[in-house]
C-alpha cells in the first residue's frame, strides 16, 4: 500500500483522540465516583436506578411513618395504664366500702370516685401531636365531656370511631390508634348469617338488651327485609321493658349490600364502613352497631347480638358517685361492670403493645431491605475505583507510547537523509 504523509498524520490523530476521550471519561468517573452520568451511559442501568430509588424512597417513608406512629402508640399505652391504675383505685375504694366502719361518710368515697373519674376523663381526652388519642379522626374538640344538663357524660363531636392507618409496606396498612368507640364506647356486634336463597321481602329479626347512661334497660329490635338479591333494608326500634316503642329508626332506612361472591358485607348505605351509630339524646342512649361479622351465604339464617359492655365507664362511675352522695351503696352489678371494663382496658393495652412490636419488627426488616437496595443502587451507579484507576493507568501508558512513537516517526522524511 502506498503511504502518503497525510495517512500517518490522520491515523495518529484519530488514535490519540480515541485514547484521550477514554482517559477523559475515566477521569470524570473517578472524580465523581459514578459510572452513570447520563441515561446513555447505561439505559437499563438508569431505569433500574430510578426504580430502586423509588423503592428506597418509599422504604424511607415507611420508616418515617413508623417513627411517627411509635410515640403516638406509646402515649396510648401509657394513657391506658393510667386508666387501669385509676380503676384499680376505684375498685379498692369500693371494696373498702364493704366494711361498715367506712360507710359512715360516703362523701369521702364519692370524692375519691369523682377524682378517679376526672383522671380517666383527662386521659381519655389526652392528645399527642395535635391528635386526640381516643378521638377517632375528629380532632375538632375533646371527645368526651358532660352533657348540657350536666347529668351524664357524652361523646361530644359526631364520631369517635375513625381509624388512623399508616402504610408500613407497599401492601400493609397498619391501624395505629384505638378508637374512642373501641375503648370507651358501647359496641353491639351483629353476627350470624342471612340465607342467600331466601325470597325477596323475607324479614329477619334479632333483638338484645341495651342500656341508657343511667343504666336503665331497653330492648333493641333489628329487622332485616330482603329487597333484592344481596340487598337488605334495616329498620330498628327500641322498646322499653313494657314493650312500648320509644324510638324508631329515622329515615332513610339503612341499606345493607353483600358481596355476591364472598358473602361478606360490602357496604352500609353505600358506605364502606360497616358500623352505624345509634344515639337518642333525650333518653341518653348511645351505642354503635357493628355489622362487620354479618354474612350472607347458603346456610340457613341465624342471627345473634353481643355487646362489649352494657354501659360506658364514665356514666357507671358518675352514677356510683351520685348514688354515694345520696347515701346509696353501689351494687355488685356495678362493681362487676368496672371489673369487666378494667379487663377490657388491659386487653386494649396489650393490643397497642402488639402493634408497637409489629412496627418495631417491620422497621428492622425495612432497614435491612434499604441496605440491600442501597447496595444494588451503588452496584449499578458507582464505579469500581480500583478497576477504573488501573484502567486509567493503562490508557495513560498507551497515550505515552503513542506520543513517543509519533515523535519518532512523524518528523522523518527522505529529506533527513539527502
Amino acid at each position, binding site marked *: *500500500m*502506498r*503511504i*502518503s*504523509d*497525510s*495517512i500517518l498524520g*490522520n*491515523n495518529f490523530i*484519530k488514535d490519540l483522540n480515541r485514547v484521550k476521550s477514554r482517559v477523559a471519561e475515566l477521569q470524570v468517573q473517578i472524580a465523581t465516583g459514578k459510572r*452513570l452520568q*447520563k*441515561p*446513555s*451511559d*447505561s*439505559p*437499563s442501568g*438508569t*431505569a*433500574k*436506578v*430510578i*426504580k430502586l*430509588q*423509588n423503592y428506597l*424512597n*418509599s422504604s*424511607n*417513608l415507611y420508616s*418515617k*411513618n413508623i417513627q*411517627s*406512629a411509635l410515640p403516638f402508640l406509646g402515649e396510648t399505652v401509657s394513657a391506658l395504664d393510667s386508666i387501669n391504675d385509676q380503676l384499680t383505685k376505684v375498685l379498692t375504694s369500693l371494696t373498702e366500702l364493704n366494711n361498715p366502719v367506712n360507710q359512715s361518710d360516703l362523701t369521702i368515697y364519692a370524692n375519691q370516685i369523682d377524682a378517679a373519674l376526672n383522671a380517666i376523663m383527662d386521659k381519655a381526652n389526652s392528645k399527642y*401531636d*395535635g*391528635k*386526640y388519642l381516643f*378521638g*377517632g*379522626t*375528629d*380532632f*375538632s374538640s375533646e371527645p368526651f365531656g358532660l352533657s348540657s344538663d350536666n347529668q351524664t357524660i357524652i361523646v361530644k*363531636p*359526631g*364520631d369517635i370511631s*375513625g381509624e*388512623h*392507618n*399508616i*402504610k408500613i409496606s*407497599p401492601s400493609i*396498612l397498619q391501624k395505629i390508634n384505638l378508637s374512642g368507640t373501641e375503648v370507651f364506647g358501647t359496641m353491639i356486634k351483629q353476627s350470624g348469617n342471612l340465607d342467600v336463597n331466601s325470597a325477596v321481602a323475607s324479614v329477619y329479626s334479632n333483638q338484645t338488651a341495651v342500656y341508657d347512661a343511667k343504666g336503665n334497660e331497653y330492648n333493641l329490635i333489628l329487622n332485616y327485609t330482603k329487597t333484592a338479591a344481596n340487598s337488605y333494608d334495616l329498620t330498628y326500634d327500641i322498646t322499653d321493658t313494657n314493650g312500648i316503642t320509644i324510638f324508631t329508626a329515622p329515615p332513610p332506612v339503612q341499606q345493607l349490600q353483600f358481596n355476591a361472591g364472598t358473602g361478606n358485607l360490602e357496604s352500609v348505605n353505600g358506605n364502606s364502613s360497616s358500623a352505624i351509630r345509634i344515639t337518642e339524646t333525650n333518653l341518653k342512649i348511645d351505642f354503635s352497631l357493628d355489622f362487620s361479622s354479618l354474612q350472607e351465604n347458603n346456610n340457613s339464617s341465624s342471627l345473634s347480638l353481643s355487646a362489649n359492655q352494657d354501659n360506658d365507664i364514665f356514666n357507671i362511675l358518675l352514677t356510683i358517685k351520685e348514688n354515694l352522695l345520696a347515701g346509696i351503696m353501689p351494687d355488685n352489678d356495678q362493681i362487676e361492670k368496672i371489673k369487666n371494663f378494667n379487663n377490657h382496658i388491659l386487653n386494649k393495652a396489650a393490643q397497642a403493645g402488639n402493634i408497637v412490636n409489629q412496627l418495631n419488627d417491620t422497621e428492622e426488616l425495612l432497614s435491612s431491605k434499604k441496605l440491600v437496595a442501597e447496595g444494588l443502587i451503588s452496584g449499578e*451507579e458507582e464505579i469500581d475505583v480500583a478497576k477504573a484507576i488501573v484502567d486509567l493507568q493503562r490508557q495513560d501508558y498507551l497515550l505515552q507510547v503513542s506520543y513517543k512513537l509519533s515523535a519518532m516517526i512523524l518528523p522523518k*522524511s*527522505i*529529506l533527513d537523509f*539527502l
Partner: protein
Amino acid sequence: MGISRLFDIARRSMGVYQSALYVTSHNIANASNPAYSRQRVMLGTENPELNSGFVWGTGVKIDDIFRVRHQFADAQIRSNNQVFYNNSQRSTLLSQVEAVFTEPSDLGLGNIMDEFFNSWNELSVTPNSSTLRDNVIQSAKKLSGKIQSMNDDLNTLQSGIVQSFKDKIDEVNNHLKNIEMLNKQIFEFEAVGQNSNDLLDKRDQAIDELSHLVNINVTFDDQNTAMISIGGVYAVDKNYAAQFKADAKNGELIMKLNDDAKVLLSSGELGALADVYGNKIPEYRTKLETIVSSLMENVNNIHKTGYSLGAPPQTGINFFESFIGGKLVINSEILNDPNMIAVSSDGTNGNGDLALQISEISNQKLINGATLTESYAGLVSGIGSDKISADNTMESADLILTQLETEKASVSGVSLDEEMTNIIKYQRSYDASAKLIKVADEMLLTLLELVQ
C-alpha cells in the same frame, strides 16, 4: 541529420523536466491540503521522424498532467458522510435532551414524583398538621416547577434546532452556488482542452461538504458536469443552482424549494435536525405528558371526593387546576390556604384516608401496565437507548470513513518521500539534458576546428 537535432532534443527535454518539477513543487506545496489530489506528469515520446530509411526518436514531451483520484472511494465517502454526520448531529441533540432530564440524580423528575407522593403519605399520618400540608404544597410546587422547566428546556432546544436548521440550509445554498460556478468553469476549461485538476478538487470538496449536511445523489455527465439532487429535488448543474428555504410548520421542519417541491430529508445533519425536532422530541414530550396527565387526573379524581379542613368542610376541590402547554397548575385556592387540601373521606379533620389513596397512585399500574415511575424510567432509558444507537451508528460509519479516507489518501495523498525522489530523478534528467547540449556544442566546435 544535423547536430542541431541534439540541441532540439536536449532543449525540449530540459523544458519537460522543468515542467515536471513545477508539478512536483505544486504537489509538495499542497501536501497538507486535505482536499488536494496529487498530480502526476505523464511523459510520452515525441513523434518520431523517418530519415534515411530509419525511424528516429525525437525526444520527450508531456502527454498529460492528471490528478490521481479514487473515484469509487469518493462515492463511498459521500454516502458514509451522510450517515456519519446524521448520527453525529443526532447524538449531540440527544445528549442535550438527556441533559434536560437530569437523570439519574436527586434532581430528576423520578425523585421529585416520589417526594410528591411521599408527602401525601406523610400527611395521611397526621392529616390536620399544617406543616405536612405545606409540605404537600411545596412538593407539588417542586413537581410543577420541574415539569415546567423540562418543558421550557425542550422548547429552547427545539427553537435552537430551528435556528441551526435555517443556518445549515443557507450553507447548502452556498455550496450549491459554488458547485454551479465550478461546474461552469470546469466546462469552459475542458472545452478548450485545458487542465482543470484544481477546480475538480475544489468541486469534490464542495460536494463532500454538502454530503455532511443533507442526503444527496450525485451523477456526472459526459462533459464532467456534476448534477446533484437533494432528497428527490433537482438541485444543481452547470446552469442552475436551487435555493432552498426552511419552514417550521405543524411541528415539522421542512426544507423546500417551494410548496410543490419539498425535500425528503433522510440523512445528513439536516435529516437529524428535522427528525429530532419533528419526531423524537415530540415523542418524548408526549410520553412525559401522558405521565403528568395521568398523575394529575388520578390525584384530582381522589382529591375531588375529599373534604377540606375548616367549618364547614368543603368538597369537590381539584388539587391541580390544569395541565396545558407543559404547565401543571396547582389550584390557587389550595396555594392560598393549605386547609383546602381535601384528604378526609368523611369530613372529620383527622381523617387522612384520601391522602393515603393519593400516595397509592404511585404503586398503581396506570400506563400500559406500568406505574408512573416505571413508565418514566422507561422514557429515560428510551432516550439513552436512542442516543446509544446514534453513537453506535456514528462510530461504525466513522470506522468505514477512516478506512475509506485512508484508501483515498493512499491513492490521492502526497508523499513527500515520493516527491523528493521525483525531484532528484527530474533534476538528474534535467542535468543530463544540459550536459547533452554541452556535448553537442563540443561536437560542433570540433567540426568548426576541422574547417580551420
